[in-house]
């Protein structure tokens, strides 16, 4: 029986604009913060897993080591779209679980301020003689001619498809705007969020339209940031101080899935099935159910995505995500608070950092250290990310007994 794994130390930088810091500076702040938080040093670490999507291929892990400590340990530079941070963490967890390391370190970092729209490639000049190329034998670029490759547009369709399938066709724009209103309201209590401004439904609906029904405040905010975590095995944790053991957070489940084949999944990405699979596996591994959760941080890369994930994570009855939201359940004073950090729409989405930052948020509540936005008595939380392509990470975290 493999050992339990615990989060010993965890840290997230302020999300936002960091013009004076480079990628390694941010990764170093997060990593050193996580080590200090856990009361350990680079000397203790047996493995480093690191993610930086924009610099994938450049070896962020080794660049980081050269600033904070070269100890010769194995580095895994990972990339899994928006699930990169969760993938890095899971890599460290697997190494500890396998008994290859007593301590593992995971970091995700991104510099995205001013990156603009995350879209498919720009159209280059079109050839002078039409020649079919690529897997569709296309003679000209298809983005914009055969659907859209922009993220806001893809996730808009995913939310609209849910509304259509479940007969909530009346006012989807306003529904999604109200989900965004909730997250922007939550963000006012999070000093590390990139945007902390409360927004009314009218302001959200009246803002710049990006891809109907997603206006600008309903889209994840591009920003800079990093997050890092130190994980430790059960047996090693038992040798540490009472304070370290008290603040340690148990990784009750750590799951990564990809999208299994479904009709239409190569036409419009299916972010549902892999999330449902990951949720099922995670609840089973943790021996808990959705009703046991005190808080959830889920991947609201767009307001349209948050709705479908209420259902995918089994927070509501199948098909009842709209009713669930309308009941007020996902507000911070509701039955299952969702994205009390402000979510990606206001906290921000430095891609590779996101899958560890959401775990930092949950851990901070479980430790009772979330100050003004503390969910009182939180004992169990879930963190979810989706990287389009697709990869889904789900972690369930549990307060130390």
């Amino acid at each position, binding site marked *: 029986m493999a050992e339990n794994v615990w989060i010993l130390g965890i840290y997230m930088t302020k999300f936002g604009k960091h013009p004076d810091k480079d990628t390694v500076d941010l990764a170093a702040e997060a990593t050193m913060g996580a080590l200090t938080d856990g009361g350990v040093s680079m000397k203790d670490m047996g493995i480093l897993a690191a993610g930086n999507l924009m610099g994938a291929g450049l070896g962020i892990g080794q660049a980081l080591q050269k600033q904070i400590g070269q100890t010769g340990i194995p580095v895994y530079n990972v990339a899994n779209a928006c699930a990169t941070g969760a993938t890095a963490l899971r890599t460290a967890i697997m190494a500890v679980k396998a008994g290859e390391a007593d301590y593992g370190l995971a970091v995700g970092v991104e510099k995205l301020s001013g990156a603009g729209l995350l879209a498919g490639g720009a*159209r280059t000049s079109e050839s002078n003689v039409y020649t079919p190329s690529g897997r569709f034998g296309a*003679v*000209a670029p298809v983005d914009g001619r055969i659907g859209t490759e922009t993220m806001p547009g893809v996730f808009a*369709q995913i939310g609209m498809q849910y509304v259509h399938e479940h007969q909530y*066709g009346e006012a989807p724009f306003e529904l999604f705007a109200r989900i965004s209103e909730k997250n922007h309201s939550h963000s006012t209590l999070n000093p590390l969020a990139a945007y902390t401004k409360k927004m009314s439904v009218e302001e959200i609906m009246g803002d*710049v339209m990006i*891809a109907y029904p997603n206006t600008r405040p309903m889209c994840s905010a591009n920003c800079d940031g990093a997050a890092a975590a130190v994980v430790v095995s059960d047996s090693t944790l038992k040798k540490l101080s009472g304070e370290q053991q008290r603040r340690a957070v148990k990784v009750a489940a750590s799951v990564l899935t990809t999208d299994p084949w479904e009709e239409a999944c190569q036409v*419009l990405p299916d972010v549902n099935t892999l999330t449902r699979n990951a949720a099922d596996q995670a609840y089973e591994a943790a021996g808990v159910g959705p009703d046991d959760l005190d808080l959830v941080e889920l991947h609201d890369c767009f307001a349209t995505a948050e709705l479908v994930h209420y259902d995918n994570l089994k927070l509501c009855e199948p098909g009842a995500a709209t009713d669930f939201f309308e009941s007020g359940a996902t507000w911070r004073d509701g039955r299952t608070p969702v994205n009390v950090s402000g979510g990606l729409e206001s906290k921000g989405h430095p891609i590779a950092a996101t899958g560890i930052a959401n775990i930092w948020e949950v851990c901070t509540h479980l430790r009772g250290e979330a100050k003004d936005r503390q969910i009182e008595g939180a004992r169990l939380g879930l963190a979810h990310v989706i990287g389009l392509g697709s990869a889904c990470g789900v972690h369930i975290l549990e307060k130390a007994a």
Partner: protein
Amino acid sequence: MTQQIPLVDYLVLGDTPHLVAHECTTCGARFFDRRNACASCFGTQFATVGVSSEGELEAFTIVSFAAPGVPVPFVAGVVDCRGTSVRANVINTAPDPEHVKLGMKVRLATYSVGTDDEGTEAVGFGFEPF
């Protein structure tokens, strides 16, 4: 008469333009791209099958911001063509939520994408309400 070429190889031109798919002969899964194998059952035999030119709009978005060079706004969507989902733009209607509705009936329509230096016209497709 002008020479024509389809925007993508799964659009068949002629008197009744229509889409075709690669259908796995083992499990029936349909794909529009060139295949190495079937993502569902791993089979390697495919047959070319016609796709219905009529369907229902099962999801859409109205894209206002896109990559450089892509004209906006436009309606991107997924059409359920009697059991085969197709990615396409909704065309020949105003790109606003008053004219584009979830579940509306649409049919295939073609349009000219442009003409190359040799006078060949590229023909694209979309779906229009009817």
